[in-house]
């Protein structure tokens, strides 16, 4: 009789235990499902953020490029001017320099001007204070080739690869 009573108690306790285990399992499964849902939501947020981040990075690159194209001429800051030499009708002074402030993020070491004409000697300038300016004198006669054609300007930087600019000196000085 005592054993039977004990068995009933055990059986009853076992059922309660089964029920509570079932409830706990359901709760855990529910929690897991909720977590899966939350994780999917977080993944979607992360994906959205990554897409937005990429979009903004592209936008920044495009805007920076737009800004650069609005500010800087394709000539890389190379400037030229010609002046007639007083009393010498055909002789003109040519000046070439670089507006280095357009290249402010880099340190310029020297600028070399190579003329595509053997009559003109190539010039190298290392003087930043004069805008790496160069000067030469040459004749301008009506109907004749007037200036040293195309000029290759090489800007050498301390901390970046050299910049080569194919510069049309004649066009720049309005000839």
């Amino acid at each position, binding site marked *: 009789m005592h054993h039977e009573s004990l068995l009933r108690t055990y059986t009853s306790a076992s059922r309660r235990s089964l029920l509570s285990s079932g409830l706990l399992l359901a709760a855990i499964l529910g929690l897991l499902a909720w977590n899966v849902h939350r994780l999917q939501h977080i993944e979607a947020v992360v994906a959205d953020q990554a897409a937005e981040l990429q979009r903004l990075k592209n936008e920044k690159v495009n*805007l920076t490029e737009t800004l650069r194209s609005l500010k800087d001429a394709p000539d890389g800051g190379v400037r030229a*001017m010609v002046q007639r030499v007083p009393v010498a009708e055909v002789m003109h002074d040519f000046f070439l320099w670089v*507006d280095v402030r357009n290249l402010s993020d880099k340190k310029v070491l020297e600028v070399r001007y190579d003329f595509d004409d053997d009559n003109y000697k190539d010039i190298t300038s290392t003087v930043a204070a004069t805008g790496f300016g160069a000067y030469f004198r040459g004749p301008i006669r009506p109907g004749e080739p007037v200036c040293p054609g195309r000029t290759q300007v090489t800007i050498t930087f301390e901390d970046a690869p050299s910049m080569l600019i194919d510069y049309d000196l004649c066009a720049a000085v309005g000839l």
Partner: protein
Amino acid sequence: MTVLRQLALTSARAGVAKLLSFFGFALMLIAIGYGLYELKAVDDAITEKKDELTELRRQIGPIEEEIDHIRNGPLSELVTPRAIAILRPGLRDERGRQLFNFIVWLDLPYVRKADINEVEYVFGDESFLRNRHTSSESSNGFAVGYLGWGAMTSVPIKIAQNQGPDVTLRFRMSDEIEFVRDQD
């Protein structure tokens, strides 16, 4: 006897169930701990991305403003006069002063050069035969120059726009010039 066997069996099962529950509970704790650790990593990554997004938005704003300013801002705020002096070796005036070629030009955004028709610079020194120089050559920044021994303290610059009123500036040329007497 049957009841006793059942009791023994139930007791043994309860022992196994207890052990399993203990391991299950331990596994759950480990899983929750790992989940929290992973969640924190994801949370940190999200915070980092949010910060990066905020920083990018902060950087983009001024670029857009600058673009708008370059496109539509008044020329007077966009133009910066520049000047250099190029040494002329061996050239001196009658008083023995070293001569330089002084060049003055305007630094302005490339896109706005087309807005300018002509620029007039006044080099107000009585020694000049011609003290008004004009340029309409946009490719060199409307540069003009003169041969002389010194720079002007103040150069009035008048910018004639294609559309809109003239813009007048005063350029402290001598502040801009750095004389180099040993040029290559």
